[in-house]
Every structure is written in C-alpha cells, then in structure tokens.
C-alpha cells in the first residue's frame, strides 16, 4: 500500500494547476471564493474553456471524446479546480445523462447528444422528483402515452435544479400504469422548447429563486426516438444515473476550499485581544473538521479505486454522500459561527457581480448565512441522507 501520489500523478497535478491558474477568469473565481451566486454564463464559460483544452469530458472514456483519466486523476483534477475557485461542473449533462446515453443510448442518440454535451452547447436538467414522489421515486405519476411515433407526456416535476436555463430535460415517466411501480417507468429525453412545458421558479429559504423550479408538462409531444433503451426499463437506467450523482456529491475539493475561507475569517475576527483562530476552543473545532475531511478524502479514493476495479458504482458511494454533506454542513456552520452576529445582515446587493466589500462593513459576511441556510439542502437532495443510510443498511450490512 502506498498513500502517496506517484510521480506521474504529481506531474499531472502540476499540469492541471498551471492550466487552471492561466485560464480561469478572475471574475468567476472571485464569485466562487466569496460564495456569490453563479449565472449561466459563469458556469458554461468555464466548461467551454475546459472543452477547448479537451478536459470537459474528464469523467468520460476516450471513445466518446473524454479524457479517459483514472479515478485518481479525476480526483486531482477536481481538487485543483476547486482550490482555484473554479465553478462546479453542472452535473446534469456531463456527469449524469451522458453516462446513461453512453451505456444505454442508441448510436444515433450518442452521436446526436454527446458531442453537444461535451461542448456545453446543450444545457440539461433532471426531471426525476415530483410533488408526491421524493424519496419514493418509484411512485412517480407523470404519464407518457404512446400515440404513433410520439409519446404524449402529462405531469408535474419539481425541485428541478437550474431548469430555467435548460435546453433538455431527462425525465422519468410512467408508461405502464398497471405494472408494479418500478416496472412501468421509462427514461425520456425531452426538448425544453416543446409546447406544453412551463417552468416556475421556487423561492428558497435564502431568498433566492434562481435555483430550483417546478416543471409542468401538459400534452407535451416527445418523439419515440428520444426514449432511452427499452420502454418500461427506465428504472434500471435511473438507478445507474443516481449512483453517478452520489460519487460527485462528496465534494472534497470544495470543502477544502471552504475550510480555507473559514480559517481566514477566524483570523480576522477579534475575540478579546486575539484573533478567534488563536482561541484553542474554536481552533479545535476547525481541526476536527480537517481530520474528518482527510478521512473522507482517503475513503473517497478507496471507493473510486474499488469502483474502477469492479467497473461500476458501488453502494459505498452512499457513505461518501453522507460524510461529504455532513462535513460540508459542518464547515458552513462553523464559518457562520466565526462571523457571529456580523453575519446577520441580509444584503443581497452585496452578492451582485462587481460588488467589492469593505472588510469592516457588514457586506464582508453577506454570503455566510445564506450559504449555511442553503447548505441544508445537501443532506436532502440526491437521495436524502436517511435514504443513503437505508441503502447501506440493506445493501452492505444485509439488514
């Protein structure tokens, strides 16, 4: 066993670091580092820069235009990107629907969709959840009826992340109402410009309404050629996709970066004659999180290595999701506590593009409470942490 990165891996890290340093626009990294909201331009802009370098498909095999990188390389890449303040990869296209299309799509679908995903020409969103179907996804009610060479889709999808920007939505729909819940579901790709689709924003607890949406589908016509794989086999593809979603949710690189910000704020705040960071009680809390994050990182690499050997996602990914999100929430909470009551002003204007805060004004901490509040979502979405624990209990422990 060797827990050091090899010389090649070190060299790879250096290459990624140089590239990111030279190509990540400061305007974008400034937003990321200060917890400001990112717009479509920021997210797509960065993906296009990666694409030009041939790195957009950093999780993809070579045959589809990806990098063919190992799990360790992907990890290093994500860590370097996060550390520099690169925006997160919008997962829906590159990391979620693309693997499904690669594994189960027809050659025609692969040709049609994959290059556009790689080039960030299409923005994808995920239409799984419904008002009555959250954790119990298989209970979904959205109907698709075959009429000649079309499906006619009716239903409501919800919690649709960034769907306001989307060109395409991948949807789970019920094609066989009388079958057992998991058996009658199909996986459809739907053009968001189709008549009958309405997107309505949901206002979140941090006051923002540009994150998730409801998507209403009324008699939406979807060509049969947009069905993935076989009719009524969608559940298999859906689960395959979810296992990909979970690995990404660990977000070790992001947490490392947030930890740095926490330390910086703790160094600025004065607790008596000293900086807060000099208070051993507070410092121990940071130290504990740092240790937890080290353990998560190594566990993450272990799971990725095991997956690479077995070729496929393992239920162990659930533990990455649970710990990853718990650590992320612990960091945003401690960061809020570091700023203390100075984080209580609600100043949305301070989160706008180009606003540079004076460290003595309340703007300096304008994003911290919002981040803490908003981060409550990470133990809910992508399969709640309770559901992840159920998966571990059943699939690993045999309970």
């Amino acid at each position, binding site marked *: 066993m060797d827990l050091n990165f090899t010389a090649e891996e070190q060299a790879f890290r250096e290459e990624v670091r140089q590239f990111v340093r030279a190509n990540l626009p400061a305007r974008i990294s400034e937003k990321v580092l200060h917890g400001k909201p990112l717009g479509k331009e920021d997210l797509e802009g960065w993906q296009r820069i990666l694409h030009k370098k041939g790195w957009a498909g950093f999780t993809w095999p070579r045959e589809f235009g990806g990098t063919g990188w190992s799990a360790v390389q992907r990890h290093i890449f994500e860590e370097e990107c996060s550390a520099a303040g690169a925006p997160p990869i919008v997962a829906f296209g590159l990391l979620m629907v693309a693997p499904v299309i690669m594994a189960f799509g027809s050659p025609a679908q692969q040709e049609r969709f994959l290059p556009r995903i790689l080039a960030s020409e299409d923005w994808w969103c995920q239409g799984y959840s419904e008002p009555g179907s959250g954790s119990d996804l298989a209970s979904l009610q959205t109907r698709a009826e075959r009429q000649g060479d079309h499906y006619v889709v009716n239903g409501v999808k919800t919690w649709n992340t960034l769907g306001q920007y989307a060109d395409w939505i991948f949807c789970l729909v019920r094609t066989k109402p009388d079958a057992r819940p998991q058996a009658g579901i199909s996986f459809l790709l739907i053009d968001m410009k189709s008549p009958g689709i309405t997107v309505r924003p949901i206002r979140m607890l941090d006051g923002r309404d540009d994150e998730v949406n409801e998507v209403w589908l009324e008699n939406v016509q979807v060509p049969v050629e947009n069905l993935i794989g076989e009719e009524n086999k969608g559940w298999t593809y859906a689960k395959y996709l979810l296992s990909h979603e979970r690995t990404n949710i660990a977000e070790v690189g992001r947490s490392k970066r947030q930890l740095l910000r926490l330390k910086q704020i703790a160094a600025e705040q004065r607790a008596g004659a000293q900086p807060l960071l000099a208070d051993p009680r507070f410092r121990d809390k940071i130290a504990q999180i740092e240790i937890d994050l080290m353990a998560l990182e190594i566990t993450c690499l272990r799971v990725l290595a095991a997956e690479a050997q077995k070729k496929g996602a393992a239920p162990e990914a659930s533990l990455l999701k649970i710990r990853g999100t718990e650590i992320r929430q612990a960091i945003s909470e401690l960061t809020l506590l570091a700023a203390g009551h*100075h984080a209580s002003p609600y100043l949305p204007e301070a989160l706008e593009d180009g606003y540079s805060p004076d460290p003595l*004004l*309340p703007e300096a901490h304008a994003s911290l409470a919002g981040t803490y509040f908003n981060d409550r979502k990470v133990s809910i979405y992508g399969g709640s942490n309770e559901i992840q624990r159920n998966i571990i209990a059943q699939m690993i422990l045999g309970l």
Partner: protein
Amino acid sequence: MDFQFTEEQTQLKDLLDRFVAKEYSFDARRKILEGEPQGFSRAVWRKFAELGLLGITLPEEHGGFGGGGLDALIVMEAIGRGLVLEPYLSTVLLCGGLLRDAGNDAQKGEFLPAIIAGERLLAFAHYEPRFRYDLHHIATTAKRQAADYVLSGRKTVVLHGGSADVFIVSARTSGEVLDREGLSLFLVSASAPGVQVRDYRTQDGQRAADVVFENVTVGEAARLGAEGQALAAIERAVDVAIAALCAEAVGAMGALNADTAEYLKTRKQFGVPIGKFQVLQHRMVDMFIHTEQARSMAYLAAVKVHSEDTSERRRALSAAKTLVGQAARFVGQQAVQLHGGMGVTDELAVSHHFKRLTMINLAFGDAEHHLARFSDQLLAKE
C-alpha cells in the same frame, strides 16, 4: 418549588396565544415583512400598547406593571411562536430595562411612559465591527468637552436601529479597548448631527442597522448612570436580552415541533406516512427532548435574570444560552431535514423559524461563547 404561573400570568399567556393565532398568522406576518418599509407594523405596535404589553416589565410609577422575568418569558415565547417582527426586545426589554436600572428620575420620566404608550422606539447601540461577544470590547469614545461629551465610533447590528428615535450608546469615557472600567452609556437622538444610520433587513426577516457616530455632541444629562461604570448595567441588560431570547427560542422550537410532527403524520412516501419510519420518530423525540430541556433553562434564566448575586445570575444565564443555542440548532436543522425539499423553501414557516433560531443563537453570544464563559467561571471558583 412551584412551576405554576400566577393567575395574571396565565391570563397574559392566553391573551398572547389568541393574538398570535388570530392576528399574527404566517400570512399576516409575510404581509408585514414584505409590505412595511420599517420591517414591522406600527398598527400592531399600537395594539401592543393598547393591550398593555409594552409596560409589563416596566415600573409601576411610570405607568408599567412592574412584572419580572417570567412575564417577559410569556411575552417572548409567544413572539417566538408567531415570528413576531415588532421591536419588543430592543425597545421594551433592552432599552426599557437599561433606563429602569440605570436611569435617573428625569430620564425615566421622559422615556418610560413614552415607551409604554408605544410613542417612542429605542435601540441599544453596543457591538462594534469585527469584535465578537465580549461586552467590554468597545472602541467608541466619548470625550469630555466642557459640560458636554463628544462621541465617535461605529456600532454594528444594532437591533431595530433603523426605526429608533433614540439610541442608548455605549462608549469609553476612559481606558483602552478591552478595559472593563471606563465604559459609559448615553442617550443619543437618532436625528442628532453626526449620527448616520444604515438600516438593513437581517437574515431572519428582522431589522438592524449599522450606526456611525461622528463627533456627536451630547450634554451631561444624556449620560445614563455613573461615568465609567456602565459595564454592570450593560451586562444586566444583555442578561435580560439573553433570558428573553431563550424564551423566544422555546416558542420557535415549540412551533417547529408541532409543524414537523404534523408533517410526519401527513406526508406519505413508500405508501405510509413518513412518521412511521422509526428513524424519524426517534429524531422527532430528540427534538422534543431538546425543546423541553431548553424550556427548563428558559425558566431558570427568567427566574434568575434579576438576581442580585451577579455571579450566580451570569452562571445561570450562560448555562441557559448555551443549552438553548444547542437545542435551537438541533431542532432547527432537524425540522428542515424532516421536511425534505419543502424544508428549504421560503413557502413554509419551518425555514423561517429555522432562520430565526439560527440568529437567536448568534445574538448576544452563541452557545460556544457562553459555554466558554461558564467553563471559565468554574476555574474562577477554585
């Protein structure tokens, strides 16, 4: 021991329960939050005055009812349950309390009846940028100039500072930034030359302000209490605020528990109400346990808040703020989690109670700060 409220207290509680249920629904509150430029309703404030709520804790000789910590607790618990936005804590409890405890007859005569009648709003301008919760950590100065004082400094997160007619400002008449001696309090009109107020909404829908004092001149009559000896009065006022916030938190936690239990009974997944899942039942039970523990500490804080034994008082108040802060965190976070996606929306009261509980923990020292103070006191006793 007796955990009963008096007959008057029970009546007060009933009155407030009715008020919050009938006139301060979540929708009514949302209208105030979104429609009122000052972030609270003057009409509701007048109603509070008519109901006698503004005078409950203030002395009888100035038109109040002379009530104590438990009376304040009853009011604040209802305020917590209803997410009430009006400036009760800042004007009545904090500033009214400071005037009651440190004011001279003229000052009391001028301000207390006006507070009780709902005619004047006051705010306590104390904390400063970057300094955390140490109450003596003050850089603002008040320099003697003949018969006057000249104040200069910056105050931050002044609760309801934007609507205040008058500030009670802490400033150094002598000493260095961290000295315990040398602090004085002043009554300063919000419209005095040199006072600049920047008003903002806070994360929980309340209001606060940053206030800059630039060479603001006030006369000797504006000084509240003895020169240089204000720390004791400040500590006492903050203890009153802490006891009040503990009660408010208990009200908010009670509302969250009720909402969450209801959600667990009605939200169905996998063909059953999610409350059938034992892991959620146990979580809900832990929320309940935390809340009852917090309620006990809120009672303790309310009973001890006017104790003359300073070290006993501060020990009880720090213990209460620690435990209530921890409970607030647990109950708030879990209530959101058990609501799933709905918990992180603006639509339900859950997220609003969660945000308020988060801010209550941060106000006047979070759980960690008060745990450290409590713990340091153990050492001092050796």
